[in-house]
């Protein structure tokens, strides 16, 4: 139990540095956080534009049947990019299925990212190379892995921070609570970034929590909690990077809720018309995180037409590289199914591998056999 310092509640209004019209915010609502410098903002802008182009491209490819499924993060770019950009090279990211653009921003190649959604294998990139855990599907489970990894790093004397993405719905899971509690008791250098896009598939936030904000949970763990405008990348970046610095300096974990909105369906197989109004979506279109930063940078004279042009060219280039990559059909050896289950070979699995090898050999020769 921490000494009786009265904990402070998160602000009722989300922390904001740039308002919906692209104007700098002053006073209370900044909660004392300073505007990131222009270079940083430009970097965030570039990443968001690229990420969105990638996201829309992948959604298109999914509609064309090139991918098994794709959960889009359209509209959530500020949370995603701000979080990733706040991390150092040695820090670890623990993403969910929703956070694909975060992987892109951290440098994973389109093919290595999309291989999972195409259904080649459960994942393709090397977690150690990128310091990115597998995209987690079982909700909230990855938050505990993040706490464990950060604790291990601390025990080994490495100043490594871990950051776990969580959705609003996933915070209802027991594992989310256990992760918050372990992190605070162990003072693990772990940042919990909750992208509150206000829906868990079809379930609105009101049916998920009765709290004023999810950030209000932090007090119950003696942890700093921040309620942030999740469509204001400047605010998200300021709050998350401050939390990362605090964690690295031994200040323990933080909980950061970014209030945002899922513009697309949950996945391509979802039908949002069953549970939300088009008008609601339209409202949020007006709060677009990229447009907002764009007009701010415009006004600041930082984002020249040339620059904007070159950025969108970069983005287009990525999109076409992604298309090309997805047009190649991957070669997957079915026999690999048996190769990674255990580190040491097992007789039973070798037998089963043999069985499949034999079957494949036959079907290749047989008429109408696959491959």
């Amino acid at each position: 139990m921490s000494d009786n310092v009265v904990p402070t509640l998160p602000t009722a209004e989300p922390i904001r540095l740039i308002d919906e019209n692209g104007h700098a915010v002053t006073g209370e609502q900044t909660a004392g956080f300073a505007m990131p410098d222009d270079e940083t903002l430009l970097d965030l802008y570039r990443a968001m534009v690229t990420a969105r182009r990638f996201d829309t491209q992948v959604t298109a490819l999914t509609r064309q049947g090139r991918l098994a499924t794709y959960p889009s993060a359209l509209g959530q770019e500020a949370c995603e990019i701000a979080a990733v950009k706040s991390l150092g090279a040695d820090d670890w990211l623990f993403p969910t299925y929703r956070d694909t653009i975060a992987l892109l921003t951290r440098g994973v190649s389109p093919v290595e990212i999309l291989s999972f959604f195409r259904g080649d294998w459960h994942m393709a990139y090397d977690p150690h190379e990128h310091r990115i855990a597998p995209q987690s599907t079982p909700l909230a489970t990855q938050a505990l892995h993040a706490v464990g990894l950060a604790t291990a790093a601390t025990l080994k004397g490495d100043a490594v921070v871990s950051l776990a993405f969580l959705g609003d719905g996933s915070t209802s899971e027991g594992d989310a609570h256990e992760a918050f509690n372990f992190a605070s008791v162990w003072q693990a250098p772990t940042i919990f970034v909750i992208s509150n896009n206000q829906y868990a598939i079809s379930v609105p936030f009101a049916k998920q929590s009765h709290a004023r904000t999810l950030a209000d949970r932090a007090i119950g763990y003696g942890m700093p909690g921040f309620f942030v405008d999740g469509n204001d990348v400047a605010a998200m970046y300021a709050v998350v990077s401050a939390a990362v610095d605090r964690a690295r300096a031994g200040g323990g974990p933080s909980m950061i809720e970014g209030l945002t909105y899922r513009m697309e369906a949950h996945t391509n197989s979802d039908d949002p018309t069953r549970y939300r109004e088009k008008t609601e979506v339209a409202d949020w279109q007006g709060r677009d995180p990229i447009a907002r930063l764009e007009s701010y940078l415009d006004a600041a004279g930082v984002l020249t037409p040339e620059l904007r042009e070159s950025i969108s060219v970069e983005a287009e280039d990525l999109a076409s590289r992604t298309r090309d990559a997805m047009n190649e059909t991957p070669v997957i050896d079915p026999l690999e199914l048996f190769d990674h289950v255990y580190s040491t070979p097992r007789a039973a699995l070798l037998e089963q591998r043999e069985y499949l090898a034999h079957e494949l050999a036959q079907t290749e020769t047989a008429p109408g056999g696959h491959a």
Partner: protein
Amino acid sequence: MTLIDETAPAGIRSPAADADAAVAPVSPAAPPALAAPATVSMAAALNRALRDALTDDPSVVVFGEDVGPLGGVFRITDALTADFGESRVWDSPLAESGIVGTAIGMAMYGMRPVIEMQFDAFAYPAFEQITSHLAKMRNRTRGRISLPIVIRIPYAGGIGGVEHHSDSSEAYYTHTPGLTVVTPSNPADAYSMLREAIASDDPVIFLEPKSRYWSKDTVALPVQTEPMNRAVVLREGTDVTLLAYGPTVKTALQAAELGAAEGLSVEVVDLRSLSPFDDETVGPSVQKTSRAAIIHEAAQFGGYGAEVAARVTERQFFHLAAPVLRITGFDIPFPAPKLEEHYLPTAERVLAALDTWEW
């Protein structure tokens, strides 16, 4: 229309079926006689079963993740909130242990919750509530508290789902005393068995083979098929007995067709009830054919097929001309979509397995 759609509902009645028919309740409000045959999918049949149960019994409630306005990711609960209201069918917070745990409390107060785990692997967070409470409450309280709860779990593969969306988790439940575990293979059984499961005073793990959700059949709903604790002989044969359930019943029937072409007379039994196991129906079949094989998608090691092989052998050892075969998934995690075709048992694999026997 698939093989199963012609054969399943009109399946041959198992010997003791009539005797037991009494134990299978059916909505008095809707006598089968009045209904007209129509083409229904398993998904539609399940939806109708929920509707009829909600209509007939005010103590029935349906809740879980996305079962409300969305109607569930598989639309099994389609339009139920609209038609019965939020107090009968609603979206719960996203927590499986919470869903099962609160259902237990509701059942203690006389309700009959029908809850949904969105996918097989997402029932695991509820494992403690299921094994330590749901399964044990009646025994613990010497029968004073029964828990008439149905946990609907879409399970198994075949739909190209990414990891955690294709597990066959039946063995975890069938090994847990206190649970009843059933799984339909066709629309008629889906309706009848779900109605019976909801009417049961014991907790029922109701496993829905998601790859069969869209399989259609001509059925007059409401329909009452065999009691849910009975297996059914779907196709008679004399050379070998294929035991299957849920998604692999279709595989077994296809194998029987292929076998017939090769002059092999294959009997196909749809187990339907995984716990209890219907020895009364399976025994005579194996005695007749003297050979048996069990087919399932789950990994083989410690899978449900092990129990089937063990008990059939215990009871029919001296009738068996060969060891019971297990045609199952491999002992690996369920593969990614592009590779699942290599994992799932096929009719060809069944026949290949039968060929390993000395005849």
